[in-house]
């Protein structure tokens, strides 16, 4: 009864503690001349501090403020995003989906963890959790309740499962009483969760 079906997995060779496992792999790859530790620092710096939901918020605020820009983002966003330096890895094919009085959009990747990195950065832990991936396609309203979001029964919930390289970003509804605000002030209302669809834009700052 030998004959393994799948081969045994290389990762089983590595230390059990994940901290040591990462360190071991890094050290090996650095010693083989394949990885520059400074490049790792630079990647981390990029996603820890430079690229994050503030990028998406800027786009959403501009869509709220500028009808021509909004039309462009809804019809052919990639040239504009390139111009704004918001193109890049995991954001090569953006689609903006607008919430309205009758439609609420929410984004997931049930098969892994696809997410629009150039606009939202790296996804939070819960977005990558089994519970979110398993449940939100089947019971989005129950999931939204856990995020404190209640929707009217006659609002249609659209759950976008990111199964290809297309990345979806939710354009939340503009909060009331924000007519006079600058794009910068509006952007402060656009939370990360509102662009995933698990929240609304903030009524107050």
């Amino acid at each position: 009864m030998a004959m393994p079906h799948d081969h045994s997995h290389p990762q089983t060779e590595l230390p059990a503690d994940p901290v040591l496992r990462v360190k071991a792999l890094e050290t090996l790859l650095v010693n083989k001349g394949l990885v520059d530790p400074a490049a790792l620092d630079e990647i981390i710096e990029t996603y820890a501090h430079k690229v994050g939901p503030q990028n998406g918020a800027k786009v959403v605020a501009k869509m709220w403020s500028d009808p021509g820009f909004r039309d462009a983002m809804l019809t052919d966003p990639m040239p504009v995003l390139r111009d704004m330096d918001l193109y890049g890895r995991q954001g090569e094919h953006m689609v903006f989906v607008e919430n309205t009085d009758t439609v609420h959009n929410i984004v997931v990747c049930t098969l892994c963890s696809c997410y629009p990195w150039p606009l939202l950065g790296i996804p939070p832990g819960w977005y990558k959790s089994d519970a979110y991936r398993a449940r939100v396609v089947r019971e989005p309203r129950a999931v939204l309740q856990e995020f404190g979001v209640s929707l009217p029964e006659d609002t249609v919930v659209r759950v976008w499962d990111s199964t290809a390289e297309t990345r979806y970003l939710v354009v939340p509804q503009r909060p009331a009483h924000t007519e006079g605000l600058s794009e910068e002030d509006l952007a402060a209302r656009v939370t990360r969760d509102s662009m995933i669809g698990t929240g609304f834009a903030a009524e107050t700052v």
Partner: protein
Amino acid sequence: MSRVHDMGGRFGDGAIKGEDDAVFAEDWHARALALTLAAGALGQWNIDTSRHARERLSPKDYTRFSYYEKWMGGLAELLVETGVVTRNELATLTPEGVSDLAERKLLAENVAAALAAGGPADRPSDKTPDFQRGDRVKLRARAGNVLVRGGHTRLPSYAAGAVGEIVIYHGTHVLPDSSAHGLGDAAEPLYAVAIKAADLWDHPENPNDEVILDLWQSYLERA
């Protein structure tokens, strides 16, 4: 289900842990992400290969591992399978010399450009779109790879066999079922397909709610 990563619609997972809101809850999470991107920059695999490597973790490992443990597991798999690292090097953590790929090493000064360059998945194709917005389509009955036994696919099980409506045509994109296995890009028309909750679930919260998936033309037939 083809593999345990294909969990959409599964029961039993409990509440979503709102407290797990961090991008990098631990320093090593960030390091694991960066290491995966830097290793990917060596050009020895593509995004479909790397997704499949994570999916091929055993069900026990996939289920017990935290997110970035899966990434590390997948990375170790890819490094050995592509010969970038030998199994012995991995076991001993002792390099058998500098790699021939060392000249492709991603340098710190090139990180910004590499991330900004991205890796678009649209490709020219001689396959023309069979469907247009508003067409009713039926999804393949089984969520499996028809090219390779046990291979990668992006059709989730929960939607297999369902009927939906084309809502967006995305152009022609790399077919992951082919690309993940070194069988070429095999680009073909890609669509967003909306399926009513009532057509997916025995007990939908609201029958008019929808799930929308991006699906390749070969996953679809006219309904």
